[in-house]
């Protein structure tokens, strides 16, 4: 394998696959770039599935430790794309967690508070903050109300940015089923928002 030489300035232009090759070739620093590119997508997907910041941190960390171990052991299949591969690992860890806990995702939020909201540094009025927090909480709750298989597809499509083909492979269903689940997820979210708007307008 021909190693790609890079300078820190050019790292952002290197493909995921080439970054992986660089890591396997001994350049540990490229993991930072892979994390920078994908951490939000992967972490948000995990968080919306488990609904707990600390648990999401643990699963995210475990997923990347598995990634690193697999890369080091030479078992990584270069034909696959990096992000869907990491998402598959994270998804399996989430499933393992629910199996171990012998519990299914509940429809109520375990923790309504948003830690990141507390450390927002830009100035906003109390009213604006309340409205923003309420909107975030409402939408997050609506996503949690979706049936698991619809929620899963919505999260993987929107937050993890996976294609329907990748989602279908990851969840072991046909592409049409994945597409259908996305359609139902959107339809149900739309209905929930309509109900909420009606209830607000009625006071």
């Amino acid at each position, binding site marked *: 394998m021909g190693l790609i030489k890079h300078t820190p300035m050019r790292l952002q232009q290197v493909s995921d696959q080439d970054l992986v090759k660089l890591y396997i070739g001994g350049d540990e620093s490229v993991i930072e770039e892979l994390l920078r590119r994908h*951490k939000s997508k992967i972490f948000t997907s995990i968080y919306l599935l488990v609904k707990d910041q600390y648990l999401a941190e643990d699963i995210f960390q475990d997923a990347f430790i598995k990634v690193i171990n697999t890369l080091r052991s030479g078992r990584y299949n270069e034909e696959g794309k990096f992000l869907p591969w990491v998402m598959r690992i994270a998804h399996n860890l989430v499933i393992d967690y629910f199996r171990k806990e012998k519990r299914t995702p509940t429809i109520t939020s375990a923790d309504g508070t948003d830690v990141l909201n507390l450390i927002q540094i830009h100035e906003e009025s109390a009213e604006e903050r309340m409205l923003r927090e309420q909107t975030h909480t409402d939408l*997050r709750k609506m996503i949690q109300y979706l049936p698991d298989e619809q929620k899963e597809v919505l999260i993987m499509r929107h937050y993890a940015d996976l294609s329907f083909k990748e989602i279908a492979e990851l969840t072991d269903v046909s592409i049409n089923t994945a597409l259908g689940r996305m359609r139902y997820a959107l*339809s149900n979210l739309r209905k929930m928002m309509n109900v909420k708007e009606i209830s607000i307008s009625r006071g």
Partner: protein
Amino acid sequence: MTKTFTPTNLKKQSKAEAFDQHNQDDQKFYENVKPQLDKLYREPSEETIAKILNYAKKR
């Protein structure tokens, strides 16, 4: 004299059209709700990132 006729596939067409309209509405809804969905993005803590980077450097 004006000729009149009754379309036989009216009901079928309306169903298909309603389905398409529903899909279009959902798609439009998705485009509108995307900015709100994007606001739910979260980041892992710096501590978690640091742990992963430390692990990655250990050979």
